[in-house]
């Protein structure tokens, strides 16, 4: 275990561990942490991982991450520009593209997210950019991974001000009743790694990052978490993983996500 890793490197590594050789992922806007996680996984335990940069640059090999994760410069080295919306959406809905990472400004106990408004919809305290692709993909992508770098009670709320993207809905078998596949599999944050209870679909604590405690996580979460027995510590990134992250993301674009916007 390397000691000299930063929090962003820990979060990237934890997210990368949710990926594997069968991952066929794409990214949306403001997705610096997920993009670095895809690159790390592909360079380590998941060499056959497929990533379409900005949903367009298939199997890209960027030498660095630009200002926008929707930018064409992220497509460097791609083997295809999937430029028709019918190709991208077609492959997302059929599950040929099966993995999407999404950061919710608000996340509730069942992994539903809000990126639209904070406060009253008609007169919001904060007007956010909007659900974007999450409003489409939440209900359709088999392997949905949520993440945030601000694990606090403003982010993890009991009631969303607006449901931009569907997670497990009202919990239980709500998604099945809607006739929708899959659902959120995990939620990686700056404090912990969580998943969703297989029956209630309520968020469950899986590990706490080094230096933190279960109580820290409970205090930072605005709803009751499922906690089953002892909660292990999140494995820190290895020296090799840290070195790779710094080579894959030489300009440290991943750290953008850790400043307060």
């Amino acid at each position, binding site marked *: 275990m390397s000691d000299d890793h930063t929090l962003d490197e820990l979060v990237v590594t934890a997210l990368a561990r949710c990926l594997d050789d069968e991952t066929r992922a794409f990214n949306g806007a403001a997705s610096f942490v997920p993009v670095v996680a895809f*690159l790390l996984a592909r360079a380590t335990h998941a*060499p056959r991982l497929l990533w379409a940069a900005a949903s367009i640059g298939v199997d890209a*090999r960027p*030498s660095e991450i630009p200002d926008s994760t929707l930018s064409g410069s992220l497509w460097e080295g791609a*083997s295809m*520009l999937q430029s028709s919306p019918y190709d991208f959406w*077609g492959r997302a809905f*059929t599950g040929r593209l099966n993995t999407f990472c999404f950061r919710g400004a608000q996340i509730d106990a069942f992994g539903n997210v809000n990126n639209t408004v904070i406060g009253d919809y008609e007169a919001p305290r904060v007007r956010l950019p909007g659900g974007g692709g999450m409003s489409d993909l939440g209900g359709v992508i088999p392997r949905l991974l949520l993440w945030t770098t601000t694990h606090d009670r403003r982010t993890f709320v009991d009631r969303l001000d607006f449901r931009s993207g569907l997670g497990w809905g009202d919990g239980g078998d709500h998604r099945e009743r809607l006739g929708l596949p899959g659902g959120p599999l995990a939620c990686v944050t700056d404090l912990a790694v969580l998943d969703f209870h297989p029956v209630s679909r309520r968020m469950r604590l899986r590990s706490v990052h080094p230096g933190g405690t279960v109580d820290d996580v409970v205090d930072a979460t605005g709803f009751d978490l499922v906690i089953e027995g002892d909660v292990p510590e999140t494995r820190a990134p290895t020296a090799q993983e840290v070195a790779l992250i710094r080579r*894959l993301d030489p300009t440290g674009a991943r750290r953008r996500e850790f400043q307060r916007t």
Partner: protein
Amino acid sequence: MGVGWRRMVPADGKLVALADVAGLVPDGASVALGGFSLEGAPMAFCAELVRAGARDLELVVPVGGMNVDWLLAAGCARRVLTALVGFEGFGLAPWFRRAAEQGLVEVEDWSEHTMLSALQAAILGVPYMPTLAGLGTDLPARLPGRMWELADERSGRRFIACGPLAPDVAVVHVHEADRLGNARVLPRSVWLDGELVKAARTVIVTAERIVDTEVFRAAPERTSYPGFAVDHVVAAPGGAWPTASGPGAAPDAAFYRDYVRAARDPAAFRALFAQRVAPLPPSSLVPA
């Protein structure tokens, strides 16, 4: 370029030998065939299905021709879903015509846009896709399970609802492919091949040339199908013959004429077919 990647993909990747492709198509499967009338059809693949004596296939061929006729001549198909099967200037497709007239094959008469809409319904996972195509024609009445007329309660406006059409297998012919499944038709893939590829569970590409992945990375905007959307790649130089190998090329006009002429005499046809394509199997519709 970024850090070199250890690509732990099996050496031959998705490559399959032409002689082994028939094994990818179980009898009774729904098989979508690419191509556009006299152009770019996966004919070498069809010849392998004939050679292997495939049976009871449901063919999904938006604008078909020789691809359908070979498989019907060989008795490989029980049903054909199509908007059109013909040889254009060379006349009607003889075995498509005879099989239909003798009730030896079920023909589902679709239109191009109703088929595109049905493929879209399957791709998007919705129960139907609306279109104005087919409204006021006899098509929907003949295909009750496939498409039906609806009216929107709000506006009263009528349309044809096309139910999802998801072939088990789609086979398209391309100019170049690599062992990861990247593939391209030059200058550009046309018509509904791309929709068949997205709607089918298993996708097979037959290619004039197998090239290195770097060929695709050098001009990614020219790639027609990404590797992750393709399951099997088959080297098949001349694999579109006798249809044109792609946009801008010409079909083998002489063969079309010989084929149509020979089809008037079973013995002459059996000889031509055995010599130029493959021996007709026992299931063949062509009288012995």
